[in-house]
């Protein structure tokens, strides 16, 4: 059994104790009391439980959060895609390795190996080529010369 004044002091500022709102000295002093006084310790426990209930009540309903979360992720995904590296289009000015041309903007795409498939066409008829990535395969020995521009 502790002295009444000690208990009064501790219980009187127990909410602040729990909130970490006392000075270090006060906190330590009350913690010492709570260690040896069962009555106050019981009160502390009750208030902790109460706070846990308040927290639980304050947190949203999981079903609702889940829906909200998936909407945010989807919107974000869309935004990220918009921001993603721009796609490029190659405006073809020449086929097959010809004399390397002037402009600095001119880009030479030479890619060896493998068969060229995109439109299932013969390379000599393409005038513009959208590049899905930097890896475009052309038939061996061929090359395309053109200007890169951002595809919209």
């Amino acid at each position: 059994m502790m002295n009444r004044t000690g208990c009064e002091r501790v219980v009187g500022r127990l909410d602040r104790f729990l909130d970490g709102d006392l000075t270090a000295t006060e906190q330590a002093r009350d913690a010492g009391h709570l260690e040896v006084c069962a009555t106050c310790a019981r009160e502390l426990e009750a208030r902790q439980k109460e706070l846990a209930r308040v927290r639980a009540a304050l947190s949203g309903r999981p079903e609702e959060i889940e829906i909200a979360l998936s909407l945010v992720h989807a919107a974000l995904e869309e935004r990220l895609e918009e921001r993603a590296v721009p796609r490029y289009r190659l405006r073809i000015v020449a086929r097959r390795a010809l004399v390397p041309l002037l402009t600095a903007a001119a880009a030479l795409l030479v890619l060896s190996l493998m068969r060229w498939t995109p439109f299932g066409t013969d390379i000599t008829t393409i005038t513009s080529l959208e590049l899905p990535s930097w890896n475009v395969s052309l038939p061996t020995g061929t090359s395309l010369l053109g200007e890169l521009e951002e595809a919209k």
Partner: protein
Amino acid sequence: MDTTDSELVARVLGGESERFHDLVNRHTGPLWSTIRGSVSNVEDAREILQETWMRAFERLDRLREPGRLRSWLLSISLNLVRQRHRRRGVVEAEPNEGLDRFPDEAREGAAERAEQKDEVESMRRRIAGLPPRQRQVLDLRLNHELSHAEIASVLGISAESSRANYYQAVRKLRSADDSPTTEKR
């Protein structure tokens, strides 16, 4: 917590934009309940939540102290809530507003974990009955774990007022609770 907010923010700004999803996962829960508690319908709450995140995404480079991400996000949402209220002509912090926070849930799944749920539900009702400011501070303190200084800056009040509102709220909830729950241990 393995990665801090600051680290994640730095990575996003450094080009790993997809890491923003991690921030969304981490902070949507508390944000949602705050927004949900401030507007009367779910659709509005969803829109505001989305808008909050999209704005945060666009303006992330303007966040001066990444460690304060949480209060920054809250400020964005609370602003959006205010704008919406203004547009709809709702008086800010209208006393009834909180009652909508926890609309009837009589739908699917209401039967499971009944007792625990009842307890939470009754606490929700009690919280809804608190004055708006107290409710707000309680939410920011316990749900978002903001310090009183942070709460003060988010709500534009003093830290002392934040403390006072918080302790009043806690005391009120406790006295409302006294009869049945305390006995139940």
